[in-house]
């Protein structure tokens, strides 16, 4: 098998068993990068020399028996909104063009402790605001399956890099679908854990009540292994939860006998592309044949998730992004007469169009006179949405549906109509509002050969049920190579 065709866990095993060295793994991904990166643009920053140095250290520790985890020596990409000490972190924004963090995000630090080798920072929508990676100040990433199409977003660089073989695994962040939707568009596995499972320390905040860091991987086993490494109770993020059940790889059992799976009828209504509908229902049938009890039900409130989300996310964004003022770090506008002019000019020149749009909306819904009618109303609807999921999980172990209404759109198609782009988040967004875990995995391709994603949603803290059902589906569908190559 070609080295770059391995999964992260397969590569980790090959390194531990001395068939491959960590340095060879780094050289292998940089050979792919050499070949494909100019076209795809998955990365904002790459550090070949640093990665090779780090690989040598890791190799020594593996040989000394000090590192023996499944991901030791495996090259990883990190979304450019996760702080990495000494490595530029831009959030794909001009306002953080030259920002070099003095500390490392907790999730990234956990990954490094497990022996992973960071090769660079992946491209994204500016401040994670977008669904296509086209709002990046550094230009778009292309979909490796067809470079005329977007990779999805906002973690589009991470998804595309894993799909293209430019790294073996990557971290992303998911505020409204930003890990799952690009995973779906690029044909890889992406997971958003239960809110509070992975520390947000060092994740540059967008919507703090919704943000979670999550893995993007080649298969379900890699996804479980990576999540197991990054999950932690962190005193530096007071919203993290002390969990005793983070041995996620223990859930990799090919067994869905008797598992109750619910399909929300409202996820298959108007607006869903025929090919996507067909592939996702075929995946449900596979699980039924494996012994799962699959039923349709009415989830309700589905159409209200998008307006509630954009109100809440914009409000939180307007507050979180106040810190970018040109004083302590980042870009500062030139030739300003006074402090206030400097703030305004810096922010107006430093932020892109979509970021400004959301900050304006957020400032409006939080302003006096509108706060109750918009912001509090959205938080009340959020409570109703959580109740609807709670009711569903009284009957079902897992909810099954599509990740997105369509496969990856063509480059340049989405940004002209922001509202239409927001509507593409309809199946992913409620998961963040309710704090639930969900996984996106490939379930075939559409008539143009573009990947279709299957979404499985679990109750809070029930990642193991998700991983078990995802693993069983992947096994039945013939493993990740088959899922990726089915045309």
């Amino acid at each position, binding site marked *: 098998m070609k080295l770059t065709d391995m999964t992260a866990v397969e590569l980790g095993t090959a390194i531990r068993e001395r068939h491959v060295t960590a340095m060879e793994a780094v050289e292998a991904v940089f050979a792919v990068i050499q070949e494909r990166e100019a076209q795809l643009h998955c990365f904002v920053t790459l550090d070949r020399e640093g990665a090779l140095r780090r690989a040598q250290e890791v190799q020594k520790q593996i040989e000394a028996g000090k590192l023996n985890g499944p991901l030791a020596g495996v090259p990883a990409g990190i979304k450019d909104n996760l702080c990495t000490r000494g490595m530029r972190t831009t959030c794909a924004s001009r306002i953080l063009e*030259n920002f*070099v963090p*003095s500390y490392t995000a907790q999730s990234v630090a956990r990954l490094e402790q497990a022996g992973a080798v960071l090769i660079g920072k992946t491209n994204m929508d500016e401040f994670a605001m977008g669904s296509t990676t086209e709002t990046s100040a550094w230009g778009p990433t292309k979909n490796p399956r067809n470079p005329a199409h977007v990779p999805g977003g906002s973690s589009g660089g991470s998804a595309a890099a894993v799909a293209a073989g430019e790294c073996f695994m990557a971290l992303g962040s998911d505020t409204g679908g930003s890990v799952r939707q690009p995973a779906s568009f690029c044909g890889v596995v992406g997971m958003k854990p239960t*809110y509070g499972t992975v520390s947000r320390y060092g994740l540059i905040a967008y919507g703090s*009540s919704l943000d979670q860091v999550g893995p993007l991987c080649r298969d379900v086993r890699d996804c479980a292994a990576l999540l197991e490494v990054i999950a932690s109770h962190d*005193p530096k993020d*007071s*919203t993290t*939860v002390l969990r005793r059940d983070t041995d996620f790889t223990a859930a990799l059992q090919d067994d869905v006998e008797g598992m109750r799976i619910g399909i929300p009828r409202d996820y298959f209504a108007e607006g869903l592309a025929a090919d996507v509908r067909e592939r996702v229902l075929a995946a449900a049938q596979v699980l039924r044949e494996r012994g799962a009890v699959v039923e349709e039900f009415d989830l309700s*409130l589905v159409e*209200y998730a998008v*307006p*509630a989300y*954009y*109100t809440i996310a914009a409000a939180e964004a*307007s507050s979180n992004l*106040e810190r970018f*003022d*040109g*004083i*302590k*770090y*980042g*870009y*500062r506008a030139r030739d300003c*007469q*006074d*402090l206030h002019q*400097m703030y*305004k*000019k810096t*922010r*107006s020149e430093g932020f892109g169009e979509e970021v*400004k*749009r959301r*900050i*304006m*909306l*957020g*400032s*409006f*819904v*939080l*302003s006096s006179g509108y706060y109750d009618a*918009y912001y*509090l*109303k*959205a*938080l*009340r*609807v*959020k*409570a*109703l949405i*959580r109740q609807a999921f709670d009711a569903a999980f009284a009957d079902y172990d897992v909810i099954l549906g599509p990740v997105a209404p369509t496969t990856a759109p063509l480059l340049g198609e989405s940004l002209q109509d*922001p*509202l239409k782009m927001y509507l593409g988040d309809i199946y992913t967004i409620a998961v963040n*509002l309710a*704090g639930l875990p969900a996984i996106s995995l490939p379930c075939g391709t559409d008539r143009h050969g573009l990947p279709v994603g299957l979404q499985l949603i679990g109750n*809070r803290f029930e990642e193991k049920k998700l991983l078990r059902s995802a693993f069983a589906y992947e096994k039945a569908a013939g493993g990740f190579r088959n899922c990726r190559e089915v045309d």
Partner: protein
Amino acid sequence: MAHSITDETIEYVGILAQLELSPEEKKQARQDMGRMLDYIDQLKELDTEGVEPLSHVLSVENVMREDVVTNGDMREALLANAPEEKDGMFTAPRTFG
């Protein structure tokens, strides 16, 4: 009901958001915000009487700790990112007239 966003509203939101928009951007912002609010108005169809606003999805309690400094002196590293600094401090344009 269709929202019509006035120039005054955009002016006011610009102050809150600390953004200075060009005339074209203002025009676009009026249109975008109006359309978005029309869309968000769907939420008004739902009866939320008596529903408590939900800010945090998990039941959380205040996390307390001793007030002890655990990080070291990072002045140099932090100032290295400053657009302008002088004598170990951040500098900014004058605040008053």
